[in-house]
């Protein structure tokens, strides 16, 4: 089985490290992964997307997703690039601090997480991306929360280690914000 996650946001929100953290966590849990980031020459404020496929065997996924299982939406600006690539009943986890309008999707299960305000509550003001990631992992069980924390610790570079604790608080705050395994990624997973 393969599960796809389409990430979208704008530069500076941590979409790239969130997608890489999820990919690394899945790899560490023994899954096969393919991660295709998509951004241009712009930095802050420009489109920053990524497509992640996680599977339990050799992947058949193509590097441009079609009919994806889920979405991770930090910002609404480039949602239009992601929406047409989702499948019929996608799981959509959104940063409700910024995504306030309708998504225009029929048949989707939408989980709203006030990621920016939760990040501020746990004194991790730059950690909104990790809040949403913690929430996504918890509600889907695509990977475990502990794997997300461990992957984050692997990926944060040496000159950013002062943020490790705040990042971890953000991931755990996100994990507590949604019901565990309410939209399970894998058959047989139970809350």
């Amino acid at each position: 089985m393969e599960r796809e996650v389409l990430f979208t946001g704008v530069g500076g929100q941590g979409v790239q490290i969130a997608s890489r953290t999820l990919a690394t966590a899945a790899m560490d849990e023994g899954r096969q992964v393919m991660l295709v980031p998509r951004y241009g020459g712009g930095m802050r404020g420009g489109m920053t997307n990524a497509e992640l496929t996680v599977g339990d065997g050799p992947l058949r996924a193509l590097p441009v997703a079609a009919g994806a299982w889920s979405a991770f939406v930090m910002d609404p600006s480039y949602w239009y690039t992601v929406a047409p690539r989702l499948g019929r009943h996608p799981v959509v986890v959104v940063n409700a601090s910024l995504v306030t309008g309708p998504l225009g999707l029929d048949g989707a299960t939408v989980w709203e997480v006030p990621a920016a305000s939760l990040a501020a509550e746990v004194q991790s003001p730059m950690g909104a991306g990790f809040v949403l990631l913690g929430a996504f992992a918890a509600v889907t069980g695509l990977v475990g929360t502990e794997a997300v924390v461990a992957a984050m610790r692997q990926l944060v570079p040496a000159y950013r280690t002062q943020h490790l604790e705040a990042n971890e608080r953000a991931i755990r705050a996100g994990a507590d914000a949604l019901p565990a395994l309410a939209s399970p990624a894998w058959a047989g997973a139970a809350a």
Partner: protein
Amino acid sequence: MGGGGGVTRRLMQGSAAVAEAAIAAGCRFFTGYPMLPFTELLECMAARLPAAGGVCVNAASEIEAINMALGAAATGARSATGSCGQGLALMQEGVAELALNELPLVLFNMARGQQDYFQATRGGGWGDYRTIALAPKDVPEAVAHTQLLFDLADRWRTPVLLYGDYVIAHTSVGIEVEPVVFPPLPPKDWALDGTMSGTGRARQIWTWNRGKPNTPGAGPDAAWKRIADKYAEIERAEARHEARDTEDAEVLLVSFGTTAVFVDRVVEELRADGLRIGSFRPVSLWPFPGSALAEASAGCRAVLVYELNAGQMVDDVTMHAADRSVVRSIGGVSQDASGMRQGDLLDLGALRARVREVIGR
């Protein structure tokens, strides 16, 4: 484009995997000027090469990069540089000098799309030369091609090129880079070793091949004839391709690089629908696998070329197809809004629609 295989593999971005492969192949000099999507390869080489005993230089321009890389190659070091097609355009004079001085070098074109096919295959500088150009379809193949290219460059003493793209440069998969062992190579007895003039042992690398007063060279006519013969020999020896389901095919889909993984999926789908369709991919863009294409296309009522440009490889396909009247281009120019990668045509649905439209089902 599967990650495939065991869980002990590391999650690596294509650029990092290609850098590891270059270092595993013995690359010890690398230089370049940052240009997306080549930048990450330069960054990875800068991070990894010094620890491997090599040197990586962030050049001030692509022209500086190609000429530094030429200098390193002239000493016999395994040397490489690269850019995207825009930067490689600036490097073309250097590539011609490398070819006509018979210096091995690996060039990485982490292209912004598929519009550099002519640049990769026609020789972009002056003189009679081509560059061996391999176009991987995914990250694992880019790793294999990188190591093969360092061998081919030394074996044939020629600049060679990897035609990658944004997707290959940026896609991360679980992969392990293992050094590949190739057959022994002749010694580099032509390499400059620092011996100065006046010793009688100084070596010379000179495009015109005139030699020195007491040891005259062959001169341009003889030297360039020999080099032209060498490229003819490469053309016979180094063509590579992949053909799938061509035995009974009445429709043949031809593509190169990343687009090929989409083509193979469409072939799979349409085969399941009962259509006799196959695919053909030049793995080496030059030498173009012409006789293999002639064989694969024999009996086909349609040969459809899917490349994301205004029609470049279609020239080579038309030249070699069994029946040139059935060759048709179904690709087109397609860039995304950033201009850094292929656009909406790099898509299974778009390809499927174009194939169905042409074949009428």
